């Protein structure tokens, strides 16, 4: 029988790259938060050992065949130090017109209490930094951290665990519905003349029957090279709904790597949308496991790259129980010499009968040197299912362009209209209107920059 592949192979790893990434740990380890907790020490040590054994993935690793981390491996990263991160910000990104509400701000991976706020949160909702949680409430996160994002087969998750220190923690108690979105702001600053790395860990626990909207902003300021190596673990309880939106607008010298693992219990819904605009090299891995019956997940996004940007979207929808529904809609726009990668896999386990899975990825190439590599995969082990995927690549429709030009619309405006319309199909997947509007204006800004 064929092996059921649920994990990425570590074949094609490069242990030689490990020491440079792990060296700074020696000075750091004792000073990291939660050093008194044995499970934290174990998790860090396992991560360190695992990464030391495999190093960065190479293109010989099937999951990384289209994304080469060679440039990353050549750099020597220093962990962010507090002094570098004291830069000030006039305006932090937000989707709230009024500008205030609950939010956590992280600068180079470190929590910044003076920029954060928990105002307006109902009683019982916990929103705090992981560093605080590890120091003051170790039991709060001990049951969840490290449970979803397995380090065995993902070297970058292992590296994240080795450096486990800070990141947002959110727990929404049973039956609580949050009225306003919670914003998580990650600012990459870095430092001139050297490369800075940080490894935030996000934990979201939405207990049974709860409902919340979380919006992540990833922005860059400063010109130093940065590596943000994010891992998020997300637990969606029975009948709970979590909308999780992310806009990534890091700077041109930023490496943005992110692994999000979500598990959805019976009747729960996990809704993820990622808009990728920034970064020199970015990779968003989303793994959504439908672990209970009648669970739903939407995993969608838009990626827009130009210059010599590289954006990788890698998703895995794991239908582990019957009656699950999954839906994926991705749209990509690739210009100049940029390259985009889409790898989407749907697994339907033998017991996951009556699964309904749908995936769509469409890419638009705007230049002669742009490239798209796509690998939409289905792995089906149950017979009574409906699964489909569609994948297309092409350029702007000449007829549509001509139609607009014939009505006196200039070339650039016409192209902008068509690109916006092309992306709209993905943007429609954002259920929350204010957030959809905010993301729309980010797209409009991107189009504007081109002109």
């Amino acid at each position, binding site marked *: 029988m064929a092996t059921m592949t649920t994990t990425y192979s570590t074949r094609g790893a490069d242990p030689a790259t490990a020491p440079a990434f792990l060296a700074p740990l020696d000075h750091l380890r004792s000073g990291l938060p939660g050093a008194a907790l044995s499970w934290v020490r174990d998790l860090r040590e396992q991560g360190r050992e695992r990464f030391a054994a495999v190093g960065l993935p190479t293109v010989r690793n099937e999951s990384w065949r289209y994304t080469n981390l060679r440039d990353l491996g050549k750099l020597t990263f220093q962990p962010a130090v507090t002094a570098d991160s004291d830069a000030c910000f006039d305006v932090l990104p937000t989707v709230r017109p009024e500008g205030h509400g609950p939010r956590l701000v992280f600068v180079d991976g470190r929590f910044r209490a003076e920029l954060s706020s928990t105002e307006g949160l109902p009683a019982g909702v916990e929103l705090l930094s992981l560093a605080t949680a590890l120091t003051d409430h170790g039991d709060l996160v001990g049951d969840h951290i490290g449970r979803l994002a397995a380090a065995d087969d993902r070297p970058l998750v292992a590296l994240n665990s080795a450096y486990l220190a800070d990141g947002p923690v959110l727990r929404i108690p049973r039956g609580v519905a949050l009225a306003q979105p919670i914003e998580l702001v990650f600012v990459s600053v870095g430092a001139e003349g050297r490369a800075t790395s940080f490894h935030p860990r996000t934990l979201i626990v939405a207990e049974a029957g709860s409902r919340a909207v979380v919006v992540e902003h990833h922005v860059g300021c400063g010109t130093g090279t940065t590596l943000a190596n994010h891992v998020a673990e997300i637990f969606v309880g029975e009948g709970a709904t979590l909308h999780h939106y992310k806009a990534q607008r890091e700077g041109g010298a930023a490496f943005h790597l992110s692994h999000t693992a979500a598990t959805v219990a019976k009747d729960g819904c996990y809704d993820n949308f990622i808009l990728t605009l920034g970064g020199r090299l970015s990779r968003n891995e989303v793994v959504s496991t439908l672990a209970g019956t009648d669970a739903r997940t939407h995993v969608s996004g838009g990626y827009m790259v130009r210059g010599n940007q590289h954006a990788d979207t890698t998703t895995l929808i794991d239908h582990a129980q019957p009656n699950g529904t999954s839906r994926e809609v991705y749209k990509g726009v690739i210009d100049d010499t940029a390259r985009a990668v889409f790898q989407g896999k749907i697994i339907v386990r033998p017991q996951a009968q009556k699964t309904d899975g749908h995936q769509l990825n469409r890419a638009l190439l*705007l230049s002669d040197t*742009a490239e798209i*590599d796509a*690998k939409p995969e*289905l*792995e089906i082990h149950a017979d*009574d*299912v409906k699964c489909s995927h569609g994948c297309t690549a*092409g350029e702007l429709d000449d007829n549509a362009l001509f139609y607009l030009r014939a009505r006196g619309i200039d070339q650039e405006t016409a192209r902008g209209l068509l690109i916006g319309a092309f992306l709209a199909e993905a943007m429609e997947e954002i259920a929350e209107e204010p957030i959809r509007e905010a993301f729309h204006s980010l797209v409009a800004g991107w189009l504007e920059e081109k002109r």
Partner: protein
Amino acid sequence: MAAQPETIEQVRAVTEQKYKYGFTTDIESDVAPKGLNEDIVRFISAKKNEPEWLLEWRLKAFRVWQTMEEPQWAAVSFPPIDYQDAHYYAAPKMKAGPKSLDEVDPELLKTYAKLGIPLREQEILAGVEGSEGKSPAIAVDAVFDSVSVATTFKAKLEEMGIIFCAISEAVQKHPDLVKKYLGSVVPYTDNFYATLNCAVFTDGSFVYIPKGVRCPMELSTYFRINQANTGQFERTLIIADAGSYVSYLEGCTAPKRDENQLHAAVVELVAHDDATIKYSTVQNWYPGNEEGVGGIYNFVTKRGACRGKNSKISWTQVETGSAITWKYPSCILQGDNSVGEFYSVAITNNFQQADTGTKMIHIGKNTRSTIVSKGISAGKAQQTYRGLVKILPKAEGARNHTQCDSLLIGDQCGAHTVPYIESRNRSARIEHEATTAKISEDQLFYCRQRGISEEDAVSLIVNGFCKEVLKELPMEFAVEAQKLVGISLEGSVG
């Protein structure tokens, strides 16, 4: 639904007699000792009386092969193969170069008669005979274990300048053509199984269609593995010169045995300007029994090069046999406006595993490719479509359309789709669609209501599902293939 005991019994009866080609021919054979080393390579080359350059090429390949590793990426699993535990040459004993069929061992002739393969030059195929006008004849090259035993209609084809013969004969009679094209599409360093084939290939067919000639009949090779503990390594080379056309069919069967046997073939196609090659396969190697014991490992490299402008290569395959299939008939679309097609029906039942698909490499301007793949998985079988569509920067206006559908029958089997799409030209348009479903209760009910038995209904529905592909087969094959589709799925419902 739960099957009635009598249904189960009936199904077993059908399944057990299902593989009707599982008999063995009792014939004296000339067999090389077991094992694989340079001496065996030299032995094969000497048996074939090959020129020095070919022996050197084989040895080069063998040396490369020793440094290679078996590919691990396919979604198939099997115990490691002991390459030393097989015979690499087996040939029925017969007089050197029989001049006519009368000199061929009657046991062999009987075997082909039993398989329904015409070795006498006659109008063929029951059911077509009575039809009006002349039914097109088929020229057959019959390969038995390691050698070609007969090729029909050679003289008639020669009148038109068409060369159709065993590749070992082509090496003797047309060395320049063989030397020019052998390994030009699948180089001797290509992959583990193809490289092994380069070192130890024994026979296969050679076809050359001269400029502007339309081959008047279907050309066909029938491969038969008979000897136990042998591997079959055939090599086929088809060249269609400018403006020519050829339709080629390939069939294959093997006896039922409890051991797995390796079949690692290489097929190379070359189409020059305005030439068309249509290559159809009905693969029916012994698939193993219901417990997954025995069966052929079918690890095959097939590739066509559309070298010329407006050339076309079309692959059609119906894959019902083999314990494990690892096969990706591909097209390199080099000439401007060239066309590649891949139509596939793969059916896996019981413990069969198939990892199959195609590669379409678009290099020239306005190149077009179409992929239609229909996979049906039943029993405990696992099946994967694996394909690559690659558009290189100069392939202005390239087009691809891919449709991959899977049908699952029963809850123990798997169907997987792994397409790779790589585009480096914005004017290229690529569309990929895939679906997975099961036979709907409504469709079954509709048929059952009209008095069609459940098995027949499934066969009917599956044939409908496969129609897009089966219609690409030459007519005689299509009839056979439809029956095969039905037979392969027997015992899969209930």
